[in-house]
Structures are given as C-alpha cells and as structure tokens.
C-alpha cells in the first residue's frame, strides 16, 4: 500500500464513511455521553485509543490464528473476546503507570469494551483484507472520526441548552433531530469519494 492509499483510507474513514454519522455504528455512546463537550472529548479519546489497539491485535489474531485454519466464521466472537480482555489489560496497566490519564478516561474505558464501533472497525478490517499498517490506520482514523462526530454533537447540544425550541422536543427528540442534521451534512462528503 502506498502512502497516498493509506492517506485516502484515513480521510475516507474520518469524513466520508464516518462511523457514527454515515455507518451508524456506536450510536449509544454518541447519544449517551454527548451532553458536555469535555466528557465527549474523553469518550472520543478512549474510543480512538481502543480502536487503534484493537485493530492491531485483531489483525494478528485474524491472520495468524483464524485464517490459516479456515476459521473466519469465528471472527466476531473471538474479536469480542480479544477486545474485552485487551481493554481490561490496558485499563489495569494504565491505572498503575498513568494514573492521571486513567482518571480522565475514567469510566469510559470499560464502557467501550463491547462497543459496536470498535468491533465494527475490527470486522471491517478483516472483511476488506487490509494490511497490518492499513488496519491500524483505519482503526485510528475511524476513532478520530468518532471523536469528531461526538465532539461536534456535544458542542451543538451545549448550545441547544439556550435555544428556544418547542417543549415537546426537550431532551432526546431534539438530540436526534440534531444528529440527523449533522448526519445529513456529512452526506455531503460523499461527493469526494476516493475509492
């Protein structure tokens, strides 16, 4: 894979095929942790981190354990297992070595062990036959895309606090309307499809 291909893969994962707004993966944290922009940043960083690491490890599991034996059908279950264990390990190591970072990621790290966006990234890597480097880049870019979406959304929601909308829309209805509008905006990137 050339540098240009990898770059276009990254841009595609961040903007054109944004995990949240175009693929509709990881909607739960997207709606759940987007009330304040600082918690949204925390969640975004955690997801990006886990996705990158998970992409690398699941690539290894897929290519050196499952594929040689023709066990591709075990991808989903083994990826869940690997990601969950991995996040636990990372959390424990982080708690010991980087307590400050652990505190700021806090509850979000264990929350995303079974996040469908993380699993989705791992499965898409396997489906699209990406190389190791491409897999890691794709995981990182998908995570950054998630972060972009959730931070944008959180900032809009913060402003919504002061907006004057009908009372019946209070809470989730207006949040979903907002999410739909942001999603529509991201559809505009479809025009610059690289692949």
């Amino acid at each position, binding site marked *: 894979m050339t540098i240009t291909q990898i770059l276009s893969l990254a841009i595609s994962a961040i903007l054109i095929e944004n995990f949240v707004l175009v693929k509709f993966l990881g909607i739960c944290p997207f709606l759940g942790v987007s009330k304040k922009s600082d918690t949204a940043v925390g969640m975004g960083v955690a997801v990006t981190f886990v996705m990158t690491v998970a992409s690398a490890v699941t690539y290894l*599991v897929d290519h050196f*354990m*499952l594929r040689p*034996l*023709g*066990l591709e059908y*075990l991808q989903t*279950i*083994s990826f869940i*297992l*690997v990601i969950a*264990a*991995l996040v*636990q*390990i990372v959390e*424990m*190591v982080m*708690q*010991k*070595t980087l*307590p400050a970072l652990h505190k700021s990621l806090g509850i979000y790290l264990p929350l995303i062990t079974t996040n469908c966006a993380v699993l989705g990234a791992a499965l898409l890597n396997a489906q699209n036959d990406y190389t190791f480097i491409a897999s890691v880049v794709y995981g990182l870019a998908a995570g950054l895309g998630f972060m972009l979406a959730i931070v944008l959304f959180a900032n809009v929601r913060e402003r919504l606090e002061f907006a004057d909308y009908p009372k019946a829309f209070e809470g989730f209805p207006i949040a979903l309307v907002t999410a739909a509008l942001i999603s529509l905006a991201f559809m505009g990137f479809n025009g610059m499809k690289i692949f």
Partner: protein
Amino acid sequence: MDYLSILFAVLILGGIAILFGTLLALVSRVFAVEKDERYENVVELLPGANCGGCGFAGCSNLAEALVAGDAPITACPVAKQEAREKIAEVLGITLTRNERLQAIVRCSGGDRCGKKFDYVGAKDCHAANRLAGGHIECQYGCLGLGSCVASCAFDALHLVNGVAVVDHDKCTGCLKCVKTCPRNIIVPIPYTADVNVACSSHDKGADLRKICEIGCIGCKICEKNCPEGAITVEDNLASINYDKCTTCGICAEKCPRHLIINAKLLDLYPDKGY
C-alpha cells in the same frame, strides 16, 4: 463432517480465552494498585443501596470522594448516625452536625377530600396532576396515586386511605419522594421531629371545610397552645419551626381537626388509619 475443524475451532477459541485469561491474571498481579484501605472500610459502612441521593453515581463513588475529602460525611442522606460516626472514625475526622432527615407528607386528605371527577387514567400523580389540575377538589392535596410510593427504594411509603404516608422507621431520608411529588407536598424535616402538620392547603377555613373533612382551617389553636412558640399560622396554614419544636405533642392533642400528627401518639388515633 470434518470433526477436525470443530476441534480446531474449540482449541483456537479456548486457546485465545486461556491466553488472555492468564494475561489478565498476570497483569492484575503485576500492576495491582494499592487502594487506600480506608476506602474498603468506608464502602462497607455506607448503605450500599446505590440510590444516588448523594449526587454521586453510587456508594463506591461517594466512598472515593469521602476518602479524598471531597465530600462531607453527611453527603449520604441514607446512612444512620452510627454509620456516620464510624465513617468519621475511619477517616480520622470528627462529625459535627447531625443532619439526618426524614420525609413527611403534608396532606391527610385522601378519601376525605372531595373529588372533582373520577380519574381513570394512568396510576401516576404526574399524569393526573396535568389533567385539569388534578381530580381532587383541593389544589394542594395528595393525589393518592402513589408516584412517591413507586419512587421509594426502601418501602417506606404506602397509600393509606387514599393518601401517601411515610413509615418513620423505614424512611432513610434519601428524599427521592420529595423530588417526585408533583404537588411538592412531601417535605424533609429533621428525623428527630415527631410532629408534622399534615396539610398544605392555603385555602380559607370556610372554603376548605367544603372540600376536605380534615384539612387545616387556620384556627390558630395550635399557635396559641404551643409552649415554645414554635408554631405560626400564616396564610391559613399552620407551620412548625423545628429549631424551636421540642416535640412535646401538645399541638397534636389540641388540634380540632386532628391533622397535626405526633408520631409518638399515633396509637391515639386508630380511626385515622396511620
């Protein structure tokens, strides 16, 4: 049927599980973080109901804040006085004030309160309250549909004769019901206070008599009889200043409507159903 492929699948998946299991065990040993031992003790002393009354996500979060000194011991509204003293001991600080509260319902109308219409909707006070301002004549009274009963995690609230009643022994003072009641007639009072004016109506005596058999008519008999001057009648409703009240119970005896309730003397009014 190729049995080998099944065997391989089991082996691979089992292998991954064992690998990561061992890794997890190793990492948890190597990277074990020594937690403040006070934390464990505090967690044990807290009620463990995870009711969220303190504003934290759960008891363990409060325990962390307590150990870090970020929260006062009184932050937990549920903990009993002894537990608080023990927590103070664990943390090596002195407990200064007793702020334990209980909830009481400021209404005793229920079945004795007139109905505007028969309400057959959802068994929820919020719903009933929105429908033409409630189905009972009194605009202040208990709607008797038990939203507070449903909100109580400690089984301390019950509907008795159509009105919610707090069980003094079971009430932990988490005050969830206070927040739930759409008519704001459940209020916190000190746990040691046994006397409560069970009415919230500011209607004039004459008007109130027409719609409720029991509500406060603002006759001021309690105000005149209170030896401590703790009761004042304002806007047709008696209220007790608990800083002055000694819970002597004289007001409860004198009240002609029997709506000042003395927890100590509840047996005196068996017909009231409390």
